[in-house]
């Protein structure tokens, strides 16, 4: 990938579950002029750690800035760009479609083809739920549009790498820059003169 090629990237960030963390992340996106297409955040498998998936478009260099700036936030524990990895990516949408006795059957067929489900029915509308990759959600929405979409909500994409967990929180905390490895602060730094006892959180620095 060259520096000028724009591509969609899927990035996962593990965050400490603390007040204002989301504010820090979105504030960073806005002041660094990063354009984010979707963002979801929720609990991870580890207590006190939230997991955020976001999708952003840009060149490799743009995205490197997004990742390194985000990683500098104190409450951000780990970042993984999973764009190049085999990944399960899903988005959920709830779509309220106008129906009548003529169209209901056709719509139900579409729901079935898309492995979506109907979660609410009344005389004039249906609520359809779909959990699928983004392009399938787009495609269903396009088809349903002809019947009249009254309301819609999409969650944004969530992602998980396939296979054994290389990106779980417990494996992810030790990431440092690719060409550096960490050594404990030996106190020679003028700014770290009394920082010895705090190295309990130092890590071996190998990329997980």
């Amino acid at each position: 990938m060259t520096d000028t090629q724009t591509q969609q990237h899927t990035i996962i960030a593990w965050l400490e579950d603390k007040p204002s963390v989301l504010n820090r992340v979105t504030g960073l996106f806005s002041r660094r002029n990063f354009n984010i297409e979707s963002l979801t955040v929720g609990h991870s498998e580890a207590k006190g750690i939230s997991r955020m998936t976001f999708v952003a478009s840009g060149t490799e260099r743009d995205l490197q800035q997004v990742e390194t700036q985000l990683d500098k936030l104190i409450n951000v524990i780990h970042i993984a760009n999973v764009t190049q990895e085999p990944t399960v990516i899903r988005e959920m949408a709830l779509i309220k479609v106008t129906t009548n006795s003529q169209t209901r059957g056709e719509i139900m067929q579409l729901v079935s083809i898309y492995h979506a489900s109907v979660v609410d029915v009344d005389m004039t509308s249906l609520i359809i739920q779909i959990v699928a990759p983004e392009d399938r959600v787009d495609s269903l929405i396009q088809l349903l549009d002809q019947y009249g979409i009254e309301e819609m909500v999409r969650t944004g994409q969530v992602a998980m790498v396939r296979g054994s967990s290389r990106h779980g929180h417990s494996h992810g905390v030790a990431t440092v820059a690719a060409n550096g490895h960490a050594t404990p602060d030996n106190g020679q730094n003028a700014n770290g003169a009394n920082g010895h006892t705090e190295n309990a959180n130092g890590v071996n620095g190998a990329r997980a």
Partner: protein
Amino acid sequence: MSELKTGGQIIWESLIHEGVDVVFGLPGGAILPTYDDLYKYNYPIHHVLVTHEQGAAHMADGYARATGRVGVCIATSGPGATNLVTGLGTAYMDSTPLVAITGQVSKSLLGRDGFQEADIRAISMPVTKHNYLITDIRDLPDALKEAFYIARTGRPGPVLVDICKCVQQASMEFTYPTTVNLPGYRPNRLTPDPDVIDRVAQLLNEAQRPVIIAGQGVSMAGAEAELRQMAEKANIPVATSLLGVGTFPATHPLSISWGGMHGEAYCNYALQECDVLFAIGARLDDRLTGAFSTFAPKARIIHVDLDPAEMGKNLIIDTPVVADALLTLRALLPQVESNEHPAWLGQINEWRTDTTERDILAQETDELVAPYVMRQLWHATNQGNCTVVSDVGQHQMWEAQYFYHTKPRSLLTSGGLGTMGYALPAAIGAQMGKPQEEMWVIAGDGGFQMTMPELSTVMQERLPIKIAIINNGYLGMVRQWQDVFYNKRYVGTPLFNPDFVKIAAAYGIPGRAVTSKEDVFDAIRQAQNIPGPYLLDFQVEEFTNVYPMVAPGKSNADMIRRGRPVEN
């Protein structure tokens, strides 16, 4: 069971644990419980009362830059906190370790828009490395411990701790934490990868026209000696960034001063022509590089910085090295081969000679110009054996051009944010941290007036700060842009100035106006010989501009330069 401590007591005890000896602040309602606890403590920490909270933040900044320790400022809620913001932004841009403590309304009043409530956590988020809002006393000790840890480690920066009034008044058993739990923060000193060092050494050894750019990060890592060893071993010319001034002696034969918008022309030529550029501890911002795409076009750039986010932020980097400056130089030293580079150094000397011939000081004139003042000050201070705190504008550029800095941390200036009004309060902080140091403020007549009331703080603390105002009756640098880009339409730049000597006298500070060249050295000597503070009002020629000058967004190759002297 140990004794209960109030939140206010916990704040002071934490500061004592961190080795803080002085704080700069101004009290108000929401921070009063903490101030009252300082009274109860029989003043274990010296509190410097400021006239405006911006001054408190700059003082903490100046203290930190001069000493390398964390500076601390303190303010009340609402306007007290918002007045800190310019100082926090200044510290953030220049990576100064600073802890700001602010009072906040009580938790029960948060979000009610009550008197003097401002969401300083949200306001300060973009200008701090991290910040806290403390609504529960149980979170206070960890937050204070973490604040100091975060401020001084890794790439340093300001941290703000906003503390609700009710937390300051509450009490609990207190022991200062010995560890921090910050799973997302790993500020270890990074050792460079050996393979990367091999490549860097190879690039440097094969270079025909190498240049080093040294930034403030070299001083933060304490790597000045190693930098010099490497430069001398391989005979590589060394430029600095503006904040890097002092990391490499400006009088050294390999020094090529500093580059950029108002850097020396010969330095800019060297940067444009070099084939390998080794930048260390400098973030390579637009004022140094000119238009990013045009900077050092022939060079493969090696960038050493401990902040991975600096890699490739502005420039395309050939070899990024995310590592500590000292550890990198130590690893490189044995691998960098001795070298002479006679042709390259000869070329640079030709450019240097051309610069010298165009020097304003080489022109015969009776007019008093700021560069002359700077050079005389350098002579009078035993060739720069002092700390200079400069403000922002033309005088700042002339100071950096004409005052040869030879020791680290001897120039304190707002490089990134470019904050006018920085110099006087920052010098107060620096002098508090280094009481024996000869401390000079150099400020323009515009910037000086922004924080001039801190003269009362100078007197209150009896600080022997010497102040040189470069008074040309204009917001000079802005006026210079109007000269060059706006056809001399001087909108909003002529100043109505007070008599600065009388202003100083009103505070009890002696001073003297200087209007002619002959009086400059004598006046500086007089300022030095009088114990305590002194103010010199250098009334300089009005329309002198700083050269060279690179227009914003242009290449450093396209400098506007002072003309050569007319040949007879």
